[in-house]
């Protein structure tokens, strides 16, 4: 089992949409109360649209133009051995391109190792890595979004912005998560290519009805085979209205 343990401190400037695998919640006012005849297809279509709207709201409720933070990434194995990385992360959007610089601060043997990522909306990311021991930079070409983020159970897909239109949404009901009344929104990959790219087939998000913040996400392979769960806590308001989860934990089987 590996977990992302904590994000210790955040420094944020400006506002921008931040790319995270959090579903955003949008409040939709019920307008169909006056309706008398309910067709099943119409009802499910309405539910699907409602589910997508909840997802969109959850997506939109995190909106940071740029960000600077320090985080601690702790990875645990099944015997509870831990590997810890202190990282600093600076992100800003330039003309629609999200640029991120990730630097390892500790432990000493990897301190100074830095990744620079240009996340384009319409093509594959560009990545460069700097290794202090070589004193040189190398461009990395890797199209594998589902691959692990820094050796953890988070994938690059988890850490980048999902495309809402890649999924089919359903509202499965409600559930209490840590005292919060949450929508259960199911998102199923529309195609095999999306499944392959993300490393999962289906995602179940638990989104707070009031705030639109996601507190938990369960990931599944085909045939409802559970693979991992992300838990999000310690949301803090930053830069006015935007929220940010200062604790993210990913548990695998």
């Amino acid at each position: 089992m590996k977990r992302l343990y904590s994000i210790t401190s955040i420094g944020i400037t400006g506002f921008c949409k931040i790319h995270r695998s959090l579903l955003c919640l949008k409040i939709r006012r019920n307008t169909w109360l006056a309706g008398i005849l309910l067709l099943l297809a119409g009802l499910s279509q309405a539910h699907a649209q409602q589910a997508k709207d909840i997802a969109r709201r959850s997506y939109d409720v995190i909106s940071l133009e740029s960000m600077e933070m320090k985080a601690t990434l702790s990875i645990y194995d099944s015997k509870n051995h831990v590997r810890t990385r202190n990282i600093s992360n600076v992100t800003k959007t330039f003309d629609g391109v999200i640029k991120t610089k990730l630097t390892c601060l500790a432990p000493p043997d990897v301190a100074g190792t830095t990744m620079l990522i240009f996340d384009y909306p319409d093509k594959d990311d560009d990545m460069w890595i700097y290794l202090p021991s070589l004193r040189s930079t190398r461009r990395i070409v890797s199209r594998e979004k589902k691959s692990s983020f820094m050796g953890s159970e988070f994938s690059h897909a988890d850490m980048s912005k999902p495309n809402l239109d890649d999924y089919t949404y359903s509202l499965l009901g409600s559930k209490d998560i840590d005292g919060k009344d949450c929508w259960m929104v199911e998102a199923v990959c529309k195609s095999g290519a999306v499944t392959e790219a993300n490393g999962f087939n289906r995602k179940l998000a638990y989104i707070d009805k009031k705030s639109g913040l996601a507190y938990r996400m369960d990931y599944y392979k085909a045939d409802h085979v559970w693979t991992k769960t992300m838990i999000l806590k310690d949301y803090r308001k930053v830069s006015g209205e935007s929220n940010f989860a200062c604790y993210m934990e990913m548990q695998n089987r």
Partner: protein
Amino acid sequence: MKHDLFIVRHRKWFIALPVVMAVLMLLPLMKAHINPDLMDYLPEDMVSKVNLDRLEAVFGKYDPVLVLFSGEDVLRAGTLERMRLLNQTFRQSDKIDQVISLFELKNIRSEAGSMVVDPVVQSIPNTVSGREILRQSVRTNPLVYKLLVSKDFKHCLMLLNPAPKVPDKELVLFIRHVLKQYPGPEQVLVSGQPTLRYEIQRIAMRDLMILMPLGLIIMLLTLFLSFREQKGVLLPFSVVCMSIAVAMGLMPLLGFDFSLIAVLVPVLMIAIANNYGVHLITRYQELNAVHPRWGMKRIVNESVRKLYTPIILTALTTIVGVLGLLSHLLIPPRQMGIVTAAGILFALLTSLTFIPAVMSGVPKGQTSIHFGEKPTGWMGHFLAWTGRVSTGKPWMVILVFTLLVAGAGAGLSKLQVAINLEEMMPASSDLRQTMGLLNDHFGGTKSISVLFTGDIKSPRVLKEIDSFEKRAAQLPEVSNVTSLATVIHTISRSMNNPGMPGYDRIPEERQAIAQYLELYTMGGDPEDLERLVDFDYTNSVATVQFKAENFSSFKQTESGIRTIAATLPSCRLIAGQSLVEETLSAAIIKGQISSLLFALGSIIFLLWLIFRSFKAGLIGAIPLAVSLVANFGLMGWIGLRLDIATSLLSSIAIGLGVDYTIHLFWRINHELQHGKDWEDAIAYTLRSTGRGIAVNAFSVMAGFAVLLFSGLTILKAFGYLIIFSLLLCLLCALVLIPAILQLNRPSFLLKSTKAQL
């Protein structure tokens, strides 16, 4: 009658008790369970098993199913598409933890100043030029070429590591079901340890269901052809059935799992348990023919009184022979020795109590044999012939047998031990075919892992691993060595340009190594590293893949690896499935020798005790020695290898074969005591007791003949060999031993023995 045996007087008890006991012993069979895991057959303190457990404690159990695709060119679009769909389906399953295939492994390379990290097959090429680009890319990937794809690109492997606690049957059936969903022109073979275990269990269960009833039918037929009388068929048959129930029921009662050689237990009971009853029936028919006015009770009394000593002695020698298996290193042969000995003991007691008890209460049958001076029937003529030859031309007989033994025995030098567990499966099975293809196209099926401990990121330790990899790769028969050093070299080639100081080298600084590994976790897949180094970088394993045609070739490569490892201080242990199989092979040899020596020594001692003569032991051991030398020599000539089943041969053959000689000695002694000369005593013995010996031998051989229908090659081979052994023991008892006695005229046969015939 006051001279009636105790058994006859209380016959009802002696009929009811064995039946009740046999029925009760069927109950524990409800919780019987076949254990096909060959690792469980080994003692816990075995060094190679302990080392493998230590390795698995660090890196987890690695027990994949291998799916092997074969076709004209595995890089064809259709083939790759099929593999891609299968890869996707297997990845999505909860039964499979990890898929290793062309679509999962990474190709890390330097390209135009960039480090490119892609799956080996990023997209399926539809053109010839695209396919050739992919082919070249595979050739330059040391983690794929000749490991996952064969040198000629006609074969490709996919490895499926199962999720924890998924039963073998469920896993294998699921994989086969998925393969059917994506058909194609390629040949697909499924193998690996989970498949081997599943197949062993399936075949062993099927054998148990088929061989036992078949053996009983053959036995019934043999008894009918021999005796042509209802009681001659049903009474020994009843004893056999009850003995099977007792021997098999004893296994779960004693906490023994049914191993794959447990299939032999009912077959042994069918072969052995009717031996004692057969002699009683033979004696009954002989007395009925010679004394037609005798009543049944008198015949029974006479038969038991005359035969109980040799029957007990023959049972004792068989039990001693079978108990020779207790000296075996492996657990299942030891367990088999115990339950078979118990079953034989039960058969002995039942034959001497149940059969006389039943016979004393039923009417006599019509005489079906004629005991005159002229031989009748083919058996009568054959036995008369043996009498003429052994007494008329004894030197010729000894010469012929000597030449036979010398000729067969020359094959002993060619005898080899099986080193592949897959050899127990039929040649047409996926497992055997895969083994052949892996040996021919992938550099071999054997692998040995070497564990290094310490600070794995330190240049000193990593250079030791690198040095081991380079030196081990030079050993003959070694096709591949994979270690963390391979990965570091790959990264250094992609991070440095050719000609730069760091290109394709282990860095001199710990920091550089740490950052290379960090880079790999950022850009590659950390799961790829999990089989090479542990989580906190204190243990790393290098795996050597090689071919080994036979035991000595294996030992040679193993010795080379150990020699190299001994020069490297960070090397902590050497382990692997192949080493466990090698220990198994060595145990087979040791077990064979120890059980043979124990059984032979015990038999010679027993014969010495019975006849008060060491010469009796030596002469009695001659048929056993002849049959064993000829048997193992024949195995050497025809290329049959010693394996877990054939290693049981010597104990069982000795235990069974000596019976014929004991009966022979006993009867000859009786005839000499009654005034016959040597020639007449031998001839008469062969015509009378010889018939019982022959019926006994043929019914035993018929019992073992069912093994020829087994689905496991090793059991089939065991069947052929034991029949051959017993045939030789029979010929020795009927021809060679009488010839030796005619020439030697040993004094121990002139002495009076306690019981008289």
